[in-house]
């Protein structure tokens, strides 16, 4: 048996559309070891869902290889389906079944024995905080509760791997936090391998390994710290009064590696904080641009991601 929980090599998926072939995932390679929480991070349309579905065998692949727990995504579909839990991006639990009926249904199709169901269903409902809603129709649950029900249903057969496609989409911040703490419990208690797709950078920080997906391609992979470490230099943040003018002035200045906009703020990557901070302040003063303090801040996943995407597009542009 393969020691990898999930693996993909050179995975490519193209869709035939009226406008021709669309490449949704291109030459994707990734390795997820058991017990890891792997985050596939990327903006809308990056190909996260497509990659997940191809790995699960829900879509055919155009090229490459992929497997879960050593089972090939295409050839061993049923072995995979017995051992993996999945929450699709669109909430697709039968809305006209109650919470309990949903749990029973998924337990039934996964052939969970009656005794095991008696024990596990109440446990999972309590875990998901749904014990008081067993008779409510799934369609009448709040967004966060729907996702928790989906999680509970996907765990009913005690899978070794769960794959969650944007599990916090359309969920309020409090419920998002709750959901992630449930995932944390699962990893700690059961050693579950979790594969999660998300566009939220703050969620990426909670993963042990991440892959950044952009335009169907994996542009970086590693631990969150490693990814952030890929960035050159240090990060300065400030809010100028004349945004466009400040942006124009600073671009291309000596020692400025990269400039990102962040709402009303400017994020400036510099090679040396001490030297460049004074230099920028002087330049702005010369132009008569008022601004608040320039401060050095910790690089977050968000800045790292934007930076990596910019590098990528520059490479393609050249």
């Amino acid at each position, binding site marked *: 048996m393969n020691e990898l929980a999930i693996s993909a090599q050179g995975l490519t998926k193209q869709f035939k559309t009226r406008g021709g072939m669309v490449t949704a995932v291109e030459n994707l390679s990734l390795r997820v070891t058991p017990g890891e929480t792997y985050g596939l991070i990327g903006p809308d349309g990056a190909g996260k869902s497509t990659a997940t579905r191809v790995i699960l*065998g829900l879509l055919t692949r155009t090229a490459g290889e992929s497997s879960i727990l050593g089972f090939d995504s295409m050839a061993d579909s049923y072995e995979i*389906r017995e051992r993996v839990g*999945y929450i*699709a991006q669109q909430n*697709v*639990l039968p809305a*006209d079944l109650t919470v309990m009926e949903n749990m029973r*249904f998924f337990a*039934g*199709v996964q052939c969970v024995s009656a005794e095991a169901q008696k024990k596990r269903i109440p446990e999972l409902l309590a875990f998901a905080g749904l014990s008081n809603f067993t008779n409510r129709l799934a369609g009448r649950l709040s967004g966060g509760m729907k996702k928790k029900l989906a999680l509970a249903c996907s765990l009913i057969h005690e899978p070794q791997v769960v794959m969650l496609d944007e599990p916090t989409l359309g969920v309020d911040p409090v419920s998002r936090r709750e959901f992630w703490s449930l995932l944390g419990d699962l990893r700690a208690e059961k050693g579950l391998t979790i594969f999660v797709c998300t566009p939220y950078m703050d969620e990426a920080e909670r993963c042990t390994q991440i892959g950044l997906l952009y335009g169907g391609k994996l542009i970086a992979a590693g631990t969150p710290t490693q990814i952030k470490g890929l960035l050159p230099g240090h990060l300065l943040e400030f809010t100028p009064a004349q945004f466009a003018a400040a942006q124009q002035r600073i671009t291309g200045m000596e020692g400025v590696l990269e400039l990102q906009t962040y709402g009303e703020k400017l994020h400036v990557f510099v090679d040396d904080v001490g030297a460049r901070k004074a230099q920028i302040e002087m330049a702005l003063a010369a132009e008569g641009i008022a601004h608040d303090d320039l401060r050095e801040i910790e690089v977050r996943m968000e800045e790292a991601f934007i930076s990596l995407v910019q590098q990528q597009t520059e490479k393609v542009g050249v």
Partner: protein
Amino acid sequence: MPKSLRRLAALIRKEVTQLLRDRRGLAYMLGLPLLQLFLYAYAVNTSVYHIPTAIVDQSRDRKSREFVQALVNSQYFNATLQLENGAEVMTAIDKGQVRAGVIIPPHFAADTDRGSATVLMMLDGSDSASVSSGYSAAALVAQSYASHLATEQVQRKGIRTSALAGASALPITTSTRVLYNPDMIDIWFLLPGLAGLILQTLAVQQAALIIVRERELGTIEQILITPTRPLELVLSKMIPLLALCLLTMGVVVGIGVFWFGVPFQGSFFLYFWLTLLFIASSLGLGLLFSNRARTQKQAQQQALLTMMFGLLLGGMIYPRSAMPAIPRFIGDLLPMTYFVRASRTIFTKGVGLRFVWTDMLALAIYTVVVVLLAARNFKKRLD
């Protein structure tokens, strides 16, 4: 219990819960067939004119000759043969020389004057159109000619004859229903076929939508990710619908028998099995459409086409014997064709398995083939 059966049980329980929870869908499934039944019953007129008819005039008086003339004048009958007795008429019908026979017993004129005249009408039960038109026409003529023709005596006699002969032999009666709406009698002959058309339409349509709908909604994804096999999924969609369609069929036939007074001559047990096979094969066909279609619209169109073919080619209205080879072959591809023939035989002739087993076997084979095809065509993936 094998895993496959456990999964099937879980899937069926889910389908049943969802079906029962969808009140509007249920009302539609039970209501639409009844609407169709009443519409067809009151609106369809399948009159056939100039039915070749054998005449047995045992009375040979002025009134009997007038009666025969009135039948011919009605345009519904052509007096093509003169015979001696009922047995000869039966033979002529069996040989296909005539489609109907009119037997006027001795002393017709005298009996008419006394108000107790009886005329026996024999009609070829295998040709619903002639039977229904002939019956209504004869009933009308009988009424206009001698409005107080006796009924009971004749009815008993008629039933005896039909049991004896195996071919439909129907009395001329002057029941109030005939008096107010002569064409209503069509339903007697239409019902066994009409039930087939209505149920095939319902079964194919419901089944055709059921899987492709989940595909369009996206709910199929969460089912596909379970270890459910295609055949299990197909059967789980089919079995609850089968129960529902059987119920609907029971209601349709029940209304036909108790409301429209259609006589049911055969064995209910046999009829149940015939119906079961027929509905199973229709559902299988619908599921095959559902698994091949990309959108609900496509599936709906295929279901509609099946209904049209069923109406025209299934033998309910137009006799299949008169069809050219290609339409007849298309008819052979419809479950309805087998059902209509067998249904009529059981309904009106009251004969046993011996006469309908070929059609039932055909439906059984049809069901197996089409369900396996549906499972094969089920897409295990999203693309």
